[in-house]
């Protein structure tokens, strides 16, 4: 199935009744060259890059529920590459460049919208920190602009500029940042990977690993039987520790709940993605009109996909401080997803000490924007057995070596990242 203006016209003349399934719901075969655990954005992207970039097409993606039912469908859909530390800058910019060509690559409308991401600053010290980050980005070839108050007023006249405690002074803008339709990203990768022969197997929960006498992983035990594999890649952020434990591994990761919110639909208001610098609040407006927003993780270990009231209150207070007029907008939905909070706030993409088992984990609450980049570098690792150059710092042993990538500088306390 190839999508084009012609396929759209053809379908329109038949009343849109003849669209075919965009990907194949497969049953497991006995053996694959590579088995990916986790049918979220990262797992499906990895499978697609394996097939398209590295010529490995005998690949299965195993998903315990339905594809995109975890964090891929629970995030706030933001894409950006405004990071400041070596390791992160290059990787997230690689990912940003892949977002920019994703729709052509996949032949799928993932609604990538480069509407800009602006981080507001509220003090001289914060302006200096943002200027430094912007300069770091520009040195690395990433777009960044430091806006003063007048420029922010022109761009977003609806903000509260009379906040005496946290006055808006300006913002750091990345114009190439923006949003993408999260579900469509999952379906797009499934569509393109399936067309290249990748088996996407749903309702197939991994319950253990098959190992040979030397301890090498030779396959996975699942709720749909044993599946042999040359290599096994884990892309199960949120549940990484639980799956790794089946192979006897302990990870530098805690699972935490992050809530997200959407309001009732209102007329177009917010032109971009913006963040409040004096609290933790980020917001954009969906094409349907709802304000999509979020803030901090709840702060305690959790595998329950729901959070508690104090964080809801805190997030809404952040929104009210920035835009008091949204106080009369009603909250439509609120939900929670489980984050792999790593010990330095950065991801882990590496071989594990278990032969044949590869790890893609620790995305904290920044996994969505990383989806295409993560897929490419994880596919590279699986295909070549060595890290991609833009993921060379995301090693599992960096904690032991003291080579942390800690953007926030808070140390080994996962709930503070």
């Amino acid at each position, binding site marked *: 199935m190839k999508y084009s203006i012609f396929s759209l016209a053809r379908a329109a003349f038949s009343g849109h009744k003849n669209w075919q399934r965009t990907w194949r719901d497969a049953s497991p075969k006995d053996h694959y060259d590579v088995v990916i655990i986790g049918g979220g954005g990262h797992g499906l992207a990895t499978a697609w890059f394996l097939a398209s970039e590295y010529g490995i097409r005998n690949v299965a993606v195993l998903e315990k529920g339905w594809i995109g039912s975890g964090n891929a469908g629970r995030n706030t859909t933001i894409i950006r590459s405004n990071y400041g530390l070596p390791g992160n800058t290059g990787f997230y910019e690689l990912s940003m460049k892949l977002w920019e060509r994703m729709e052509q690559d996949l032949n799928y409308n993932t609604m990538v919208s480069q509407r800009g991401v602006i981080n507001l600053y509220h003090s001289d010290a914060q302006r200096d920190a943002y200027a430094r980050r912007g300069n770091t980005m520009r040195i690395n070839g990433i777009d960044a602009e430091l806006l003063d108050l007048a420029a922010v007023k022109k761009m977003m006249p609806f903000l509260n500029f009379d906040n005496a405690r946290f006055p808006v002074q300006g913002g750091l803008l990345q114009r190439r940042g923006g949003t993408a339709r999260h579900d469509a990203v999952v379906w797009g990768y499934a569509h393109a990977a399936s067309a290249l022969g990748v088996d996407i197997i749903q309702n197939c929960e991994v319950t253990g690993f098959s190992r040979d006498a030397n301890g090498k992983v030779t396959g996975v035990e699942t709720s749909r039987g044993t599946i042999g594999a040359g290599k096994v890649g884990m892309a199960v952020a949120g549940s990484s520790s639980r799956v790794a434990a089946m192979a006897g591994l302990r990870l*530098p990761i*805690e699972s935490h709940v992050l809530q997200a919110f959407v309001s009732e639909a209102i007329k177009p208001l917010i032109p971009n993605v913006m963040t409040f610098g004096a609290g933790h609040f980020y917001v954009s407006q969906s094409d349907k009109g709802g304000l999509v927003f979020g803030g901090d993780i709840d702060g*305690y270990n959790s595998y*329950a996909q729901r959070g*508690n*009231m*104090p964080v809801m209150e805190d997030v809404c207070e952040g929104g009210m401080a920035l835009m008091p007029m949204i106080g009369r907008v009603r909250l439509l939905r609120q939900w929670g997803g489980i984050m792999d909070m790593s010990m330095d706030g950065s991801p882990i993409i590496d071989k594990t000490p278990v032969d044949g088992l590869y790890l893609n984990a620790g995305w904290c609450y920044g996994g969505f924007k990383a989806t295409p980049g993560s897929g490419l570098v994880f596919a590279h690792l699986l295909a070549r057995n060595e890290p991609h150059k833009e993921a060379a710092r995301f090693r599992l042993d960096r904690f032991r070596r003291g080579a942390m990538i800690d953007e926030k500088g808070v140390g080994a306390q996962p709930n503070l990242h």
Partner: protein
Amino acid sequence: MRIVCPFCGERELGEFTYLGDAKPVRPSAGGSEHDVFDYLYLRDNVAGAMSEHWYHGGGCRAWLKITRNTLTHEISSVEPAAGVGAAKVGG
């Protein structure tokens, strides 16, 4: 989630701060590099009942040891954990 503090009674979650898993114990000064690495970075990340340290900063300012199920958020016990900071240092 509400926590029944042994000193203050039932209080809302916002009064408490989370430290984390109560299991890791700081190695003694003579501990090996591996012990320090394990204590600092590796976690069981329990899915189920887990023993944790919480701080009642919005109330009596006591450290508490709470057993809580990470799958359901159900709390099964709350005990005072006086001197948790000191208790974390092993022998």
